[in-house]
């Protein structure tokens, strides 16, 4: 592991990135170096997740660079896909990765699963459908939307458990919603986790501390899938598979072993491997991939195989273009591209000869080249990679029975559960906000929230518990705490407002909220209660300000959105003042505000 830095420096960035054993620090350096080099294609992806996946960005950039794409990554806010959509669109993001996460339903959801009634699960399902339908509806302008499925973190129970059943239902909902949009691709996260193994996929240390459950290995595999389903962020669209014949379609050399001697029978080894390979190629053809032959052989003999050999799966009608001759393969590939009127970068080339593969790689770098491995069983893994290239993110042709089925089902469900607007969706949540003044039993939680809130924190004053206690005892100060709940459960104490009274003026000293509850209008719904209280104390004017930090840019225009007039701005500090009688906060009729 202790590889000397100097030796690493000698390697080219792309070689480091292609090395599966490269360490995190090496990848970070190689990504920066690789992006500094000129790169033709560029794309911008936005990540909106319900878990902390900051490091996913690095791996997305790694695999993008390997595919010749310089990828810019923007991170969204925690579990706020609708808010992220607007921010990403403004920032010029063209691809979207949406990663819902089980824990955002409610804490310890996995443990709670066994206790949920059927009605609870129905309600969850409807909520999930409504929320993500709104998100996908709002995301039609993005080139690719990668929607990631839900997965469990808890160890599976032999034979399955209720959590498995619930997850299967919820994932089915996400798949159905994804199928209704041409630009949406689905990633099966549960399958990704299973492929890697649960122990390899998660790092529970950071899951419990930072809501960051994923290991670098899982993030790497995830990024690889994102690249595949987005077809290298639009930079790649493979249309044709160009196949060699000898030791690719059959075992052996046709010119030497003759038609009777080549290995192709499904009942023999290694014939069965080639029979399977041909069947896979035919399946690709049926899904819209153009199959071509490019072989140094006698054309008459190859035609005879296609027409008459009893064990052949592929037949003449399945092959759209043939270059069977003795000229070089580079020229033949050029000809195939010209005949089909597609770009060289739409071709995938499969050949057993290292010499031919290298010739094509060096002279036609646009072509994706695969070599048939020497050991027949390894061949199936290579074919799986080729299939991935064509099929990841959906088949090439439109004859996708399964997708159509999903689409119809999604439409049937649309009438039952559609929310016309974001507001309808919010109304369906049955949101309540309970405002409590000077809640002494909650002092510890209030202090903790003041320490932890970074993004939605207007002045970023950090309070200790004794300080909060002192403020609550001070008659010139009110400490408002807010508890947010919806029909699925309580999010707990997730926001605090500290206001100070002096003469006829009430000043907002602090305002901070957990990102979990933003985007639902809670931050606007609280003011009528707080102002009524200030009014009762004889206050006539309101003052508030925003103090910038490295992390709270998200809240910079909050008071503007609330409708307060800006009175001064200096070095990023924004000050606001208004007469209470002139002020009406934006309405949020979907929230019921309770107070004591």
């Amino acid at each position: 592991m202790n590889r000397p830095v100097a030796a690493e420096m000698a390697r080219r960035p792309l070689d480091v990135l292609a090395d599966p054993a490269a360490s995190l620090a090496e990848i970070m350096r190689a990504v920066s170096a690789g992006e500094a080099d000129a790169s033709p294609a560029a794309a911008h992806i936005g990540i909106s997740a319900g878990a902390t996946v900051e490091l996913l960005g690095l791996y997305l950039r790694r695999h993008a660079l390997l595919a010749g794409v310089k990828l810019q990554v923007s991170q969204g806010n925690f579990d706020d896909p609708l808010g992220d959509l607007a921010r990403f669109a403004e920032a010029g993001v063209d691809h979207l990765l949406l990663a819902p996460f089980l824990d955002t339903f409610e804490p310890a959801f996995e443990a709670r699963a066994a206790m949920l009634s059927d009605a609870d699960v129905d309600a969850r399902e409807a909520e999930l459908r409504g929320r993500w339908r709104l998100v996908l509806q709002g995301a039609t302008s993005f080139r690719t939307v990668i929607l990631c499925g839900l997965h469990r973190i808890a160890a599976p129970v032999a034979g399955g458990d209720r959590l498995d059943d619930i997850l299967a239902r919820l994932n089915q909902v996400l798949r159905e919603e994804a199928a209704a949009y041409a630009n949406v691709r689905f990633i099966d996260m549960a399958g990704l986790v299973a492929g890697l193994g649960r122990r390899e996929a998660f790092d529970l240390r950071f899951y419990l501390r930072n809501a960051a459950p994923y290991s670098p290995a899982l993030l790497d595999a995830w990024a690889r899938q994102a690249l595949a389903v987005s077809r290298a962020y639009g930079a790649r669209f493979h249309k044709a598979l160009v196949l060699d014949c000898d030791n690719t379609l059959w075992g052996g050399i046709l010119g030497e072993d003759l038609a009777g001697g080549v290995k192709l029978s499904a009942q023999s080894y290694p014939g069965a491997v080639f029979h399977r390979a041909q069947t896979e190629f035919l399946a690709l053809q049926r899904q819209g991939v153009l199959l071509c032959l490019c072989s140094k052989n006698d054309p008459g003999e190859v035609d005879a195989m296609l027409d008459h050999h009893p064990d052949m799966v592929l037949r003449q009608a399945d092959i759209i273009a043939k270059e069977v001759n003795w000229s070089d393969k580079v020229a033949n590939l050029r000809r195939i591209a010209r005949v089909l009127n597609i770009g060289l970068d739409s071709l995938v080339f499969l050949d057993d000869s290292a010499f031919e593969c290298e010739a094509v790689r060096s002279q036609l770098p646009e072509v994706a080249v695969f070599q048939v491995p020497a050991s027949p069983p390894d061949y199936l893994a290579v074919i799986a990679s080729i299939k991935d290239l064509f099929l990841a993110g959906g088949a090439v042709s439109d004859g996708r029975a399964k997708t159509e089925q999903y689409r119809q089902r999604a439409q049937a469900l649309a009438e039952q559960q559609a929310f016309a607007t974001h507001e309808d969706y919010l109304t369906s949540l049955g949101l309540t906000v309970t405002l409590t003044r000077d809640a002494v039993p909650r002092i510890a939680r209030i202090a903790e929230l003041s320490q932890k809130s970074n993004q939605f924190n207007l002045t970023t004053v950090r309070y200790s518990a004794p300080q909060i206690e002192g403020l609550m005892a001070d008659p010139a100060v009110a400490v408002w705490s807010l508890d947010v709940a919806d029909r699925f459960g309580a999010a707990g104490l997730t926001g605090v407002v500290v206001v100070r009274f002096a003469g006829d003026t009430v000043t907002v000293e602090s305002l901070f909220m957990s990102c979990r509850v933003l985007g639902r209008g809670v931050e606007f719904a609280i003011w009528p209660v707080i102002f009524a209280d200030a009014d009762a104390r004889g206050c006539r004017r309101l003052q508030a300000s925003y103090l910038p930090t490295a992390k709270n840019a998200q809240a910079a225009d909050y008071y503007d959105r609330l409708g307060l007039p800006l009175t001064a701005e200096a070095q990023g500090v924004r000050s606001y003042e208004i007469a209470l009688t002139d002020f009406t906060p934006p309405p949020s009729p979907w929230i019921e505000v309770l107070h004591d």
Partner: protein
Amino acid sequence: MIDEAMLRQVIASVLGVPVEAVGPDASSDTLAGWDSLKHMNLVLALEQTFGVEIPDEDAADITSYALIKMVLQHLVAD
């Protein structure tokens, strides 16, 4: 003994600062950008580079060059 040049290099790569900025007194208080997210990445990167597994009880606390060096030396010696 651990390779301190390598250690500096890893910290610099993860935090996105020049290697020269990572002195013996570097810590999350002195280096901008050493926040809880970057710290998580740093722990993962250190584990991979030095081939060790940093125990949960240390992972969150080693927020200075000196502490990281101490914990790594201890782990490498084991």
